[in-house]
């Protein structure tokens, strides 16, 4: 983490890419493209009740572990492309980080990216439910 920023420095380029979008629809298009290039996807065959992130409107599944170097590894998948895209960005952020740093992260980067729908306090917010699950599992890995 750098300065007041509460996300890892290597995510800055992604955040700036979203900030450079012309409007919300262009941001969603970019998010859909990130959904298609998730760095550590979780195939649907591995989706089960244990790894499901419970949200009202979309299905999201995550498995958190530590890689061979001791870094955090988020594998995830969602049926909603917006959640899947945010999950991909989150994986870019957290993969390889110290689990202790992941456990202390805040979801501010989504707000900075201008994804308005990521901010709603709705119980059905797939992104926030997913993010909470990731930080909780990171804490368990300590």
């Amino acid at each position, binding site marked *: 983490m750098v300065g007041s920023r509460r996300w890892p420095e290597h995510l800055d380029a992604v955040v700036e890419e979203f900030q450079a979008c012309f409007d919300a*629809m262009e941001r969603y298009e970019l998010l859909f493209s990130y959904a298609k290039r998730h760095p550590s996807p979780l195939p649907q065959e591995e989706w089960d009740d244990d790894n499901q992130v419970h949200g*009202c*409107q*979309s*299905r999201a599944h995550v498995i958190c572990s530590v890689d061979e170097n001791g870094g955090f590894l988020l594998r995830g998948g969602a049926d*909603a492309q*917006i959640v899947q895209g945010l999950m991909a960005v989150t994986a870019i952020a957290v993969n390889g980080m110290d689990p202790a740093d992941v456990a202390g992260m805040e979801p501010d980067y989504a707000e900075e990216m201008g994804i*308005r729908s990521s901010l709603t306090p709705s119980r*059905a917010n797939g992104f926030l439910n997913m993010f909470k699950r990731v930080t909780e599992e990171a804490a368990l890995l300590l």
Partner: protein
Amino acid sequence: MTLDIEAIRADFPILARTLPNGKRLVYFDNAATSQKPQCVIDAMSEYYEHYNSNAHRANHTLADEATTALEGARNRISSYFGTSPDQMIYTSGATEAINLAAYAWARENLSEGDVVVLTEMEHHADIVPWQQMSIDKGIEVRYVPIDTESFTLDMNAFEVAIEGASLVCVVHTSNVLGVRNPIEKIIEMSHATGARVLIDCAQGAPHERIDFDSLGADFVAISAHKMAGPTGIGCLLVRVDAMAEMGPFMTGGSMIKRVSTEGSTFQEGHAMFETGTPRLAEAIGWGAAVEWLDQFDMSEVHEHINDIASWTASRMREIPGIRIYGDPEREDSSGAVSFLHEDIQSQDLALLLDEGGFAVRTGHHCAQPLMDALGVPSTNRASFWIYNTMGEAESFVQYLEEIIDRFA
């Protein structure tokens, strides 16, 4: 009289609002809750500004005014629903109304092995209380399936299911499909077998005039907030003979005659079931809402809504990848158009529509057994009401096509 939609829209200040992204609001989530006309907002503000007080207690001017307004609203609302005030119990909404029927009537009158009939079309509010009653009392719950081709109740299965039933609970109009069930026939058939009947009119009341006394149901559950009234208020309409069979549910202040350390005695009639401080502002607001609605011919309102829903559904059927759940083109459908796109997940689609200013619903709509029957986890739903216009529907379909071209 022809509906003057522009004049109606002028009564709803929220319809003029602009969203944070600069888009003009197009509100198509009316099956979740309707917007409120200025007269309802004013009635509630006036209560708090001028005569806020607890009702039924105290001998002072404000308490008299508050009590008069609360009971005046009951008179107005019960009259609107074609019945007398002694057959109307204020509740927090349709959900509490159905729970009241379960805990105050069924718990007193049903025992192990008695049968309650539900349908796959029910809202969770008309399923979970009966499942809980099944656990508590050992009653049997039967579900009438829907025909997934016509999206209507399987009435042959219904006829079989009601044999020996003590209570039949059916939704007047599906919040997902917009299908209006043949409730008159359902009531007649159920009564013929000796069962009491509860009709969930949460979705029906905003679309047609519910005349409780002539309808003949034993219980009718209604929410104010879907028919221009405030949230947090509704009612259970109960026939006098059924109310006489009910025991106390929520207990405490207001519903008692006398309390001593040895025990308590209770009020009779609706007062037995209205415990604690009443929802005064909400009841007064609902009274204003039914007065506002009463100026319209509800058959004209229904025709207006049905025209929009029917046109929207027929245009959407032409969009590749869209599937409609329900039959909004039917004359008795209530203005809900549930749909899915084969490539764009429902939550994604709702968020993309929101960027265009269109408020639609997404999810299981608190009707998961119906979702199971349809074989889908969720749907998008556009639902229309009195203030929506054909122009809004046209812009919705156009924007939907643009989204699909861009994201599918």
